């Protein structure tokens, strides 16, 4: 994770020095790379026998827990955000 933040900082410094103030059109490039990344993530999960063999038995519990955790944090943040920005 530290390397990732360093890469981010390196990009920020390069952007600051060479490209400051220019209008960059990178939204499409970002979208493309995110889609590619998630495709590769999917591949890694699909090709991992440890995950695919556990899926039929533990899949439902995992789905329930995963979605519950996500929704819980979304709702809590939504209301706290509303309260703070009244």
């Amino acid at each position, binding site marked *: 994770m530290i390397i*990732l933040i360093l890469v981010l900082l390196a990009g920020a410094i390069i952007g600051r020095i060479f490209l400051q103030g220019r209008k960059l059109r990178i939204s499409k490039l970002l979208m493309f790379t995110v889609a590619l990344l998630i495709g590769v993530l999917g591949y890694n999960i699909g090709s991992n026998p440890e995950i695919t063999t556990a899926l039929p038995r533990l899949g439902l519990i995992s789905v329930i827990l995963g*979605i519950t955790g996500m929704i819980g944090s979304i709702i809590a943040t939504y209301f706290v955000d509303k309260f703070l920005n009244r």
Partner: protein
Amino acid sequence: MKSSLIVFTCFVAGLLIGFISQVDFQILNDLSMWLLYLLMFIVGISIGADRRLTEMIRKTNMRDILYPIVTIVGTLILTLSITPFLNQLSVGDCLAINSACGYYSLSSILLPELSTSTTLISAVEIGSIALLSNVLREILSLSCMPTITKRFGPRSAISSAGVTSVDVCLPAIARCCGEKYVAPAILHGTIIDISVPWLIAVFTSI
């Protein structure tokens, strides 16, 4: 919604290809890391090129520290409310699995070590559940990012990403929520990142 669909389709396509082709391409495992580096670099450049950079850092305040706590508390409260329906798992294990907030690599390794499960599901299997549920959280947050941002606001989108708001989901946050949310997202992910090992240790011991 459209970009959520594209991303989700890519995920399913990758999953199916991985499942059908029996060849293990080690290169693809490394590729995901390199892609992530590339994404971080692009996000870095777009932040750096933005003149509002100094203003953005200056505006980081106490509220930004509050949101990761809200993320963790929200996750745990709703998880606690469904534990009566998941009687195969102990309350402590349910909370420990979800307290990872998307940190699947750590939770799937820590939980089999720390869990003292006495139910039908073994400690090793709890590790698998932690892996599956937290991967799902990451994938869903990433693919639903545009929709969550639109319906519930950028703060909820960051919250949904949990710990991955600092790495995998950061480029999507920059794209959907705007660059001004990059600094809060990094702080959000980092604070959760530091808290997860402690939370798992606490919940597995109850």
